[in-house]
């Protein structure tokens, strides 16, 4: 593999990794604060992509303005998801496997509804508005879209970090993640924290969805399947519920994927990612940088 091709794959991996990281952050947020795995996250991602698409095609919004629309729409879906699929079970103190099952049900429902509304054919952003021309003066092919994806993704990650580490809301979120009971004794409105967590996770999935749709320019109800397991792999690699871990995991997954394409295994790139997931779960389930989870099994 020549240096040029290597650099090309690295560039692709970084832009794709930014999308995976944004997506995986939503899984990690929900898992760290509620202790449940939201398997409907990939369906929210898909709806986010459609919100972006609709705002561009139907409402003629500029591309960058479609991002906040997608974030808002997908965030609201996340909140609805909490009220429908998680809250009733939480109020009943149901085991977390029940919440996993209800999130699977919600995912199937969201995908099927999208199929009924949008059909099963892939839909595209109009080519005219896509800045697909490669930037000049670089040894490898990078499009403006890839640059926008990376810049916006990094910006959002920094904002998320500030939100979680420096604001009162973030402080409350961390308190709830540590202990719901203690947090509620300290006067934190735990239900509200859960709602904002789901909104944040949904909003992140929404941007990731639009970016993924822009990168491959193909948006369809099943597009969540392409990232669902990669997002899971990312958070398993980074340690379930770890926020920096999710970012690291996202880039690691895209790196692995692009690397296996580069060495000629493009047919098996997904298989390789899942094989790593498999091994990681067996050997180091607390993730690369995480700590052991202390729970009663």
């Amino acid at each position, binding site marked *: 593999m020549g240096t040029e091709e290597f650099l090309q794959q690295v560039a692709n991996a970084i832009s794709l990794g930014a999308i995976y990281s944004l997506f995986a952050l939503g899984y990690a947020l929900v898992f760290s604060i509620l202790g449940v*795995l939201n398997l409907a996250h990939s369906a929210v991602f898909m709806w986010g992509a459609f919100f972006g698409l609709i705002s561009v095609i139907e409402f003629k919004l500029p591309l960058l303005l479609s991002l906040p629309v997608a974030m808002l729409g997908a965030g609201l879906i996340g909140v609805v998801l909490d009220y*429908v*699929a998680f809250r*009733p*079970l939480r*109020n*009943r*103190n*149901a*085991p*977390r*496997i*029940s919440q*996993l*099952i*209800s999130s*699977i*049900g*919600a*995912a*199937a*429902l*969201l*995908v*099927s*509804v999208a*199929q*009924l509304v949008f059909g099963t054919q892939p839909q595209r952003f109009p080519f005219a508005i896509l800045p697909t021309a490669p930037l000049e003066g670089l040894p490898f092919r990078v499009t403006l879209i890839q640059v926008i994806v990376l810049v916006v993704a990094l910006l959002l990650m920094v904002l998320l970090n500030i939100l979680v580490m420096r604001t009162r809301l973030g402080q409350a979120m961390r308190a709830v993640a540590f202990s719901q009971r203690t947090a509620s004794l300290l006067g934190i409105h735990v239900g509200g924290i859960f709602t904002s967590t789901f909104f944040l996770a949904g909003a992140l999935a929404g941007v990731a969805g639009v970016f993924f749709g822009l990168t491959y320019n193909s948006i369809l109800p099943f597009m969540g*399947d392409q990232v*669902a*397991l990669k997002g*899971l*792999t990312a958070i*398993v690699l980074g340690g*379930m519920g770890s926020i920096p871990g999710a970012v690291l995991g996202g880039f690691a997954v895209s790196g692995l994927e692009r690397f296996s394409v580069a060495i000629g295994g493009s*047919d*098996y790139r*997904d*298989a390789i990612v*899942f*094989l790593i*997931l*498999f091994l990681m*779960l*067996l050997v180091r*389930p607390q993730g690369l940088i995480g700590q052991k989870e202390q729970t009663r*099994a």
Partner: protein
Amino acid sequence: MLSPLAETIFQFMMRDALLGLSIYLTLYTGMFSLANAGFMAIGAYGSVILMRQFDWPLGVVLIVSMILCGLIALPIGLPVLRLRDIYLAIATIGFGEVVRILIINFDKLASSVVGEPVVLTNGGAGISGIPKLAETWHLLLFLALTSFFIVRLHRSRFGVAMSAIRQDERVAATMGINVVYTKVVVFALSAMLAGAAGVFDAYLSRAIRPNDYGFTQAVNILAYAVLGGTTTWVGPIVGGMALRALPEMLRFSQQFRGVLSGAVLLVVIVYLPGGLVNPAGWARLWQRARGKLPPGAEPSQAGAD
């Protein structure tokens, strides 16, 4: 007797009952495994390839495919079953995806190893033109034998061990139950049942594609067991049959099937956590509806703690 259409629907209902039973075995032992769709694929592809290569009758192919699934389940189960709830679910979803991708790429892989073109799984397009060899009485007999086997299993020491592991793994181990052995055997049995359902699927639907056995199928199988309830073995049979028959009876199009499956999972797990076949749950719901029971009391349920 039944009209041809009704008979076909009935055959698929029995296939789904088998799938429900296959995930019931693991849930009953407290393992949240979603590997069944993957084993179903192995059963379906294994049986078709075996019959094409060796020209064996359906019965032999069925037994060999089931053994194949069991043998594959052993090395997979040994390491994977160390994981619990969410982690086990993720790992087994990963297993299903790896099986699907390997089937899609099997011909290319085999061709490069052998050095001449091999066409066995036919990539993503799948295999079509499979003869419809599975008859209603085959399925009825197999379902009856399986149910009989599961009833006997529940009454055996092994069945008691399964239940004990679900209720508390550590206590079970302290009582001298070999937890690893029990879990791996149950995983293999579940894989064999899923494989058998895959064989019947191939010889009922006459065409198989790798994408028929993806995550969606795994979710459907889970829905059968959750809808029926996993407190008794009757539950998954009822759940599988009901979820197959309902869209047909309501004359739903294929697209509404996903809506139904998702809504069923959601509504049942939220409002009827024990499933359809769960007398205690119904009594509780009735009492709650009459305002005699405070909300928040959670009935114990199999496979969920």
